């Protein structure tokens, strides 16, 4: 009995020792190649937000490989130092500190989610390392005086709301019904909808909410119908946005146009609605609708190029999220090309960068705006014959 116990305890010690020794070997390898330009990256490759982190990681790796194949940045090979945050704020915080202090990277791209980004804003400021977040929350870059080193490449909710309100205004819609899901995404959308409506002369006649796990939205839509709105806007992600479409169709409310958030921007949603989504309107980033764009649209070329390369390499379509990583990593590479691996110079370069043609828009950064996007970087689309089509403004 005891012999087995001792043997097994011995095994445990050996296993632990191996696990502890392993990192030492890799540290030495990393030191050997000092000529490289480093780009730090933190993405939620696993965990709750892996649907963001996975395409981001693949995109970042693809671009870096591409740059190295074509001779690197001014002759310097690029190395991506990537850590998986497991969608955990604590782990992300430590990973960014490690990138800043231990790996000594001149620039960091990521994190993938707003929560993780907000948990590392202070680190980037204290370590004085430029960081380009791929998440959406406007708090990541505001107040901009306290976000000297932090940038983000994902648009804000206010852009989407602004674009959709522009469209409603063009269509003469004055009475709007709002329905939102009670989670972070819905709450943030609701806030912006209610805040911006008066600016566009739009009156909110109904303000309904529902839970993210609700299975039927008939009640909410019935109440909305009683208020006789001229349009309905639904703000949610996941199954509820499809449920809203189904209830809207089943109640025969097609005469009141249904708008959705950018969260609806996946073809899967059109399929799930089973033909019911015809006529649904939403604002989308151009990366989602590359083939629909006119050839003279400045973003068309980069989007089509990304779409093709990604599909060739990974045999799967691009996603809006991978597009954020494309924008962040390409910005980092352009900065390294222009000013070299110097943190302060890269930061200044980013702040003055305008006219950068990316997947999610034509970025115009400034000392007041560390996001560089606006509502004009979006397109209004409508579901037509089971696919996206550019929505007619006339």
């Amino acid at each position, binding site marked *: *009995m*005891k*012999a087995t*116990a*001792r043997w*097994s*305890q*011995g*095994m*445990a*010690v050996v*296993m*632990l020792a191996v*696990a*502890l020794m*392993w*990192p*030492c070997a*890799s*540290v030495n390898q990393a*030191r050997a190649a000092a000529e490289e330009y480093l780009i730090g990256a933190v993405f939620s*490759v*696993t965990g*709750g937000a892996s649907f963001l982190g996975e395409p981001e990681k693949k995109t970042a790796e693809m671009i870096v490989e591409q740059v190295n194949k074509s001779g690197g940045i001014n002759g310097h090979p690029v190395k991506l130092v990537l*850590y*998986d945050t*497991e*969608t*955990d*704020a*604590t*782990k992300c*915080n*430590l*990973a960014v*500190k*490690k990138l800043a*202090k*231990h790996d000594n990277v001149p620039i960091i791209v990521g994190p993938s989610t*707003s*929560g993780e980004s*907000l*948990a590392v*804003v*202070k680190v980037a400021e*204290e370590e004085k390392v430029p960081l380009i977040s791929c998440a959406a*929350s406007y*708090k990541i870059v505001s107040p901009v005086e*306290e976000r000297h080193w932090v940038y983000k490449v994902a648009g804000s909710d206010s852009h989407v709301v602004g674009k959709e309100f522009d469209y409603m205004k063009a269509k003469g819609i004055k009475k709007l019904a709002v329905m939102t899901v*009670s*989670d*972070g995404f819905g*709450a*943030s959308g609701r806030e912006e909808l209610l805040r911006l409506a008066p600016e566009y002369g739009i009156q909110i006649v109904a303000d309904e909410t529902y839970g993210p796990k609700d299975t039927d939205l008939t009640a909410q839509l019935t109440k909305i119908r009683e208020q006789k709105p001229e349009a309905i806007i639904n703000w949610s992600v996941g199954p509820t946005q499809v449920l809203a479409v189904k209830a809207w169709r089943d109640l025969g409310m097609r005469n009141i146009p249904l708008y959705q958030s950018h969260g609806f921007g996946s073809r899967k949603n059109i399929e799930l609605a089973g033909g019911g989504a015809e006529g649904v309107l939403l604002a989308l980033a151009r990366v989602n609708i590359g083939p629909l764009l006119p050839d003279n649209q400045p973003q068309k070329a980069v989007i089509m190029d990304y779409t093709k390369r990604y599909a060739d390499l990974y045999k799967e379509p691009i996603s809006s999220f991978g597009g954020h990583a494309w924008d962040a990593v390409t910005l980092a590479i352009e900065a390294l090309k222009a000013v070299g691996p110097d943190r302060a110079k890269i930061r200044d370069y980013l702040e003055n960068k305008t006219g950068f043609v990316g997947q999610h828009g034509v970025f115009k950064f400034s000392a007041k705006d560390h996001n560089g996007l606006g509502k004009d970087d979006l397109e209004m689309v409508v579901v037509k014959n089971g696919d996206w089509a550019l929505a007619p403004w006339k």
Partner: protein
Amino acid sequence: MPVTDRRILLVLALVLAAFPWGVRAVGAVSHYLDVMVFAGIFCIVNLGLSLLMGFAGQISLAQAAFFGIGAYSSGILTVQFAWNPWAAMPMGMVLAGLVAWLVGVPALRLKGHYLAMATLGFGVIVHIVFNEEVRWTGGPSGLVDIPGLSVAGTPLRGEIAWYYLVWGTVLVALVFCLNLLHSRVGRALRAIHQEEKAAEAMGIPTARYKVQVFVLSAALAALGGSFYTHYVAFLNPGSFDLMWSIRFMLMVMVGGMQSLWGAVLGTVLMTFVGNEWLQVFADYEVLVYGSILLGMALFLPDGLVSLKSIPVRGWLRTPRSSTEGTQR
């Protein structure tokens, strides 16, 4: 406190004091100090959990909830009411203790799986409150721009300062817990763990002691939460979900439930394993992490501290002592 404990404590204090100079000398591990700050914060939580699980024999899957109550108390009081962080900290501890008392009185009447389920349910409820009370907690998008701590007017900046503050607190808490264990209460707790009915028959007010330890563990968790809040300067509910309760429990179990030293050792080790040492495995990190836990559960069920009971000489020798081994 027995002499051995005192000696270990002294050695630990010296090692901890020298640690920053040690890691700075070796460039490759200079960022270990950052990991140690989080390890220290988790240690504060796990000392309480170790008392509760290892000594009072009660299972709690709500530790992350108390950690969160402390964190959000500090966050909300400092951000929304502009309190001094040092005043908010004890408030968080009192609040967590109060909640633990309210939950503990009925819940600790339950035993085994039922107690685990009750605390699990409570943890989930607290997590939902963090998510839904948007006006106070900021909801899923979180609470931002939480002020840092300052000592005597100077803001606490940099890892070294935080390291000494957090680990100083760990040492104080450790001394307190060790003294508690070797008092009348500590002996009573161990009696409850061994055999609750026998303890009761001896005249130990088991229910009262169990609740008291639960309250103490909640207050310690809240203290850890407050440090976390001011260190990271941002809170969102994701850091206080059930997964974190399980992580805290794993840290204590890996170190060894029956020993406070085990809790400290397990916490430090698992923080490094989870955040640092397995990064080289990249995509397979989670798999390796799982295998380590599985290996521990199979080969070292009593945790790392149980290794000290094997004298190295006897371990290397042939196992002729197998006859004496059956009794344990």
